[in-house]
């Protein structure tokens, strides 16, 4: 605990926390969000493609996005350490914060495995294996846990758990709603196609 207090009193932490300029704390936080956008955003796009969305998009060229994701990741590892020093005693004694770190570790691990499975594995022109799809789903889920845990470090633990439950409920509703909605849309287009081909057949006769 004394060591953590020492970190908070370091000149870097004091400057970050107390400097009136927006180029200290606020900018570090903003860069942390840039990193999130890069690593979570781009890996989400790749995961969605692996799950079967935008099927016309070639898989292999997506591999060139990974270096940008790692830029985002290291940007956040760096700014993350800076942000911890600002309030070291709070963050490093908070279970939620360790949950966030665990979720990030799991997300990055599944993303690495997904990269290997899809981009370095065999069958370059084939689809994505069932394992690849599971890894894509896992990556998305772990990012959601990481974002939720990260956000609620600013609140009391019980509010954090309530929020997690709310994220789960809303996420499930959106997922089910989207699935049903997509099926209905696809169903109606299939019906249209059938009606159209029927009328075309009638016209041919």
């Amino acid at each position: 605990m004394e060591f953590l207090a020492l970190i908070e009193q370091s000149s870097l932490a004091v400057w970050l926390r107390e400097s009136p300029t927006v180029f200290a704390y606020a900018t570090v936080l903003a860069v942390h969000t840039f990193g999130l956008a890069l690593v979570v955003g781009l890996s989400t796009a790749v995961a969605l493609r692996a799950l079967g969305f935008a099927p016309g998009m070639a898989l292999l060229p997506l591999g060139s996005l990974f270096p940008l994701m790692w830029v985002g990741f290291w940007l956040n590892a760096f700014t993350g350490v800076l942000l911890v020093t600002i309030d070291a005693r709070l963050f490093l004694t908070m279970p939620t914060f360790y949950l966030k770190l665990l979720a990030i570790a799991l997300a990055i691990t599944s993303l690495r495995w997904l990269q290997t499975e899809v981009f370095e594995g065999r069958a370059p022109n084939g689809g994505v294996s069932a394992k690849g799809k599971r890894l894509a789903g896992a990556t998305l889920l772990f990012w959601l846990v990481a974002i939720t845990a990260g956000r609620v470090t600013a609140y009391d633990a019980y509010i954090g758990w309530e929020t997690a439950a709310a994220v789960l409920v809303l996420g499930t509703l959106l997922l089910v709603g989207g699935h049903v909605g997509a099926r209905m849309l696809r169903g109606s287009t299939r019906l249209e196609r059938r009606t159209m081909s029927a009328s075309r057949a009638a016209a041919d006769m």
Partner: protein
Amino acid sequence: MEAFLRYILRWPSLEHFIQAYAWVWPLAEVMHFVGLALLIGTVGLFDLRLLGVGKGLAVAPVRRLLPWGVFGFVLSVVSGSLFVGGLWANIAVHPYDVLIVNGYLQTKLIFIGLAGLNLLAFYLTGMSRAVDAVGPGEDAPPLAKAIAGVSLFLWFGVIYVGRLIVWGNLALGG
């Protein structure tokens, strides 16, 4: 005008909802971040491709991911409206007062508006149709590249000034 804005910007029912349930505000924050990631992940990917990153991709199929970006934008607008409409429940300040003094919030809204105009320009200049013909390994037209660069700049700018809002003037004094 001021009376009208003061009337529509404060949503009492939303304030009650936020006050009654402690999880509403952090849930909206999570939505805002998920929305941001979806928007940058898909729209940003499209912009990057136009600029030449991931050049092996044909442009047209990348568009099929853009509905996820629209979904992300909707998540962000819904949660962002909650922050504005329910602001009183959080810091007991009228959102109108923040809106007229907070330069970061103003810049953020202007940037979002400019991103909209930029998108409009993408369609009106015919670039939207032109890029559909850009195949694997091919360059997008210079104008499409310029529009993509502006889009990336504006969205990252939105993130930056968005983060600064709470460091700006929150009209707490009056």
